[in-house]
């Protein structure tokens, strides 16, 4: 071993040991390495496997699974543009990523030869109320425009440290436009917990059940029943997990809740822990929100200081509970609760086979409650004010309120809290969406509706949503929107089951063909057939919803597809002009003679 290699390995080992001492989670150790070395080398994988006593293949598999880990070095400035329809690089109608690429002489997906900068696109980063946005070394820059792109290029070329970039670029606002029962009051710290102790565990559970609270992630399972199943399940330990991996494009309400209502959230997790008998909780934070980590850690530290976390909470003997934060690394699938648990366990985020469900076999095989950020916050309010207070708002089947992240073509994108049962029309009026032709409820995995359906209502029995609401005006090309969503799902499919792994790619390719003006009636029929198969035969919620935008689009906006069709019976997938793209890139040509029409 020469001295250079020895030095590298010594450095690797010290970084790994330091990261591991701070937090033993594989994702955290890998993050430390990625940050230090801008990639995770084969040596690093070997050292991590040795230090954490894991199979090499597991470490390797995890590195390759998550979008924010790389085996090839990224630039010292690693720039990731969101590609969402609301906060993506095309959000302002101009391709900002291509623009930065020209300024920095770099192609998306690559690292520049001098190692200074790398640039790529990434799935929605949850900045949809701020227009086009990007992450630079994990820090969000919002409200991008062409002038900023020029300045960013100059700052990168000058190697200006991020601390010296304009601070206002990093300013992420809450943009709360309509406050309802949850957002109106900022509860004083600990008040929910003291009320709960007076109720005792059984009384707390009964309040939550009677409140009719259902999971705010969108699936709508009764929160009280989930807690009760967990409490009754056999296990050596129980866990409370908060799913703060809101990756659904167009969703950003958890960002705001984590930023401004973290106390209520942690209080709700402690309430749950008391009700089910858990000692340990985890907040699984999406990697895109890593910038919120210092804030969240400081809230946790303050709560420990106040005796609201830790041993004998509020002097109640035996009420011991604490919360660790685990940060993801760019994988939408980890918002699926069993994939999230796999990720917590340091594995690839592959959804488990269910049954058994996490309430009986969750984290480390033990009974586990997984709830959404908003669900825990609602639970805190319910404990404090009672189930009747909660039930008084909303509808029979959908009690309480829903916090919406509204983005897209409207005057005032932001956070809106409504009682369940509100009509889409009301929501559109409030956010200043004057000429909406379509609304995507619940994000790409939800429901796409047209103006004929704007009198439908938000709720578990009509339009269910995890909180994303994207508005598309008459000026929007709906096919382009649906193509964007198809690319998203193909990128985020975990690859476990055949229908989703292959089907999402076939759907993406088929839509690209249609959008490119090469589709026929046959291709439309194929899309319908494939989409139905992917929806009905996939393993988990991702595959089962991935085709929704296509199926909804074919039903409600058939003209968006049909106007692009060529009027032939069949057109081959092979596109001569597209096949020349690689040659054009190599020869740096894009003139007319370099194309075949």
């Amino acid at each position, binding site marked *: 071993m020469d001295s250079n290699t020895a030095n590298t390995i010594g450095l690797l080992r010290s970084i790994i040991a330091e990261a591991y001492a701070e937090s033993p989670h594989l994702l955290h150790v890998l993050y430390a390495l990625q940050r230090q070395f801008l990639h995770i080398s084969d040596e690093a994988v070997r050292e991590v496997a040795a230090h954490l006593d894991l199979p090499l*293949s597991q470490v*390797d598999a995890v590195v390759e*699974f998550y979008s924010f880990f790389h085996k090839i070095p990224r630039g010292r400035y690693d720039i990731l543009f969101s590609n969402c329809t609301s906060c993506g690089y095309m959000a302002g109608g101009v391709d900002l990523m291509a623009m930065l690429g020209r300024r920095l002489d770099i192609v998306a997906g690559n690292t520049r030869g001098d190692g200074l900068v790398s640039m790529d696109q990434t799935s929605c980063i949850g900045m949809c109320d701020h227009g086009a946005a990007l992450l630079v070394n994990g820090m969000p820059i919002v409200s991008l425009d062409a002038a900023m792109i020029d300045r960013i290029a100059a700052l990168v070329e000058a190697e200006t440290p991020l601390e010296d970039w304009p601070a206002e670029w990093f300013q992420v606002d809450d943009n709360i436009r309509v406050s309802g029962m949850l957002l109106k009051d900022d509860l004083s710290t600990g008040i929910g917990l003291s009320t709960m102790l007076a109720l005792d565990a059984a009384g707390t559970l009964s309040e939550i059940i009677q409140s009719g609270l259902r999971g705010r992630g969108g699936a709508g399972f009764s929160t009280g029943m989930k807690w009760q199943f967990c409490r009754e399940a056999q296990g050596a330990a129980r866990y409370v997990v908060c799913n703060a991996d809101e990756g659904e494009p167009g969703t950003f309400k958890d960002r705001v809740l984590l930023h401004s209502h973290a106390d209520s959230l942690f209080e709700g997790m402690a309430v749950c822990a008391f009700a089910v008998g858990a000692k340990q909780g985890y907040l699984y934070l999406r990697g895109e929100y890593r910038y919120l980590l210092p804030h969240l850690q400081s809230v946790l530290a303050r709560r420990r200081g106040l005796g609201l976390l830790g041993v004998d909470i509020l002097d109640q003997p035996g009420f011991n509970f604490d919360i660790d934060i685990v940060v993801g690394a760019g994988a939408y699938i980890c918002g699926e609760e069993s994939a999230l648990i796999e990720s917590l366990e340091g594995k690839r985020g592959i959804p488990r086979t269910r049954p058994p469900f996490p309430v009986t076999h969750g984290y480390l095989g033990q009974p586990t409650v997984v709830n959404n950020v908003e669900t825990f916050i609602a639970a805190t309010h319910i404990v404090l004010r009672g189930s009747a207070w909660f039930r008084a708002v909303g509808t029979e089947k959908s009690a309480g309120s829903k916090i919406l992240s509204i983005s897209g073509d409207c005057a005032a994108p932001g956070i809106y809290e409504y009682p369940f049962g509100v009509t889409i029309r009301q929501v559109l009026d409030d956010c200043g969406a004057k000429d909406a032709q379509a609304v995507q409820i619940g994000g790409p995995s939800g429901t796409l509706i047209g103006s004929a359906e704007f009198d439908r209502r938000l709720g578990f029995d009509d339009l269910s949503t995890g909180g994303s609401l994207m508005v598309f005006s008459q000026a929007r090309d709906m096919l382009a929107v649906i193509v964007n969503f198809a690319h998203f799902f193909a990128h985020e499919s975990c690859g476990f089951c055949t229908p989703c792994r*292959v089907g999402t790619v076939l759907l993406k390719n088929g839509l690209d063909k249609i959008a490119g003006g090469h589709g026929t009636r046959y291709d439309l029929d194929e899309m319908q057939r494939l989409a139905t*198969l992917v929806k009905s035969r996939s393993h988990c919620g991702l595959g089962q919803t991935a085709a929704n935008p296509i199926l909804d689009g074919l039903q409600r906006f058939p003209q968006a597809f049909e106007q692009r069709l060529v009027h032939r019976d069949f057109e081959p*997938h092979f596109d001569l002009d597209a096949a020349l793209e690689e040659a054009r890139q190599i020869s740096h040509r894009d003139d007319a003679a370099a194309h075949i029409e």
Partner: protein
Amino acid sequence: MSADIKQSPITKNTITIDGQEIPFLAGQTIMDAALAAGVYIPHLCHRQGFTPHGSCKLCVVDIASRSASACTMPAVAGQQISNNTPALNEARKTITQMLFIEGNHICPSCEKCGDCTLQAMAYHLGMLDGHFPQFFQRREVDASHPTVMLDRDRCILCELCVRASREVDGKNVFAIAGRGINAHLVVNSASGKLVDSDLETSDMAAHICPVGAILIKEHGYEVPIGQRTFDLHQVSEIGLEKTILTKVRQPDE
């Protein structure tokens, strides 16, 4: 196993598959119960005795009108299951086509031709072509091991080798890495090569591959075309897996 079920007086539990009433024991999946009763449900990633996986989705059935994987879904008394229907077999055919076009299959020149469960499944389901455009993915071949070769072009990600290595051989030679369409088989060794793993020719993992992704070297074409497993058997014959495994592990027999 079917004898056990018939004789068990405490088990009155039955499910119904395509109108046929089938008994099951507590803890059995729909697949377990079906195979024990001699009812074939198409499958690729399932193998009796291994932890059910549920990834290939060939065993999709409809319970009432809900889709489920027979290999992972517990049998529950009274389930009304559709299995051998035109609609389900059409879905299975499409899924089989997906497996063909995402990989790079070379049936006519593949050593596994005639012994390959994927190929047999295609015949069983009446698949005449790949239907979809080929993906032509670049996948790595690993010929480093002295006696076993790994051609990822033909891998269908069923994880039978992963499970065989862990559950039967007591090793951990294989795993899946990557995400989505980039998911691929990796080898648990410092170099990522088979030669540096502890795989041995006698391991179950070296023989379990239902396709031609893991092959034993220097044993090509010992059984002539025409006398291979699926020249003599239907893929739908129950218990065929044991026949296949015996044959590949002792080709001279």
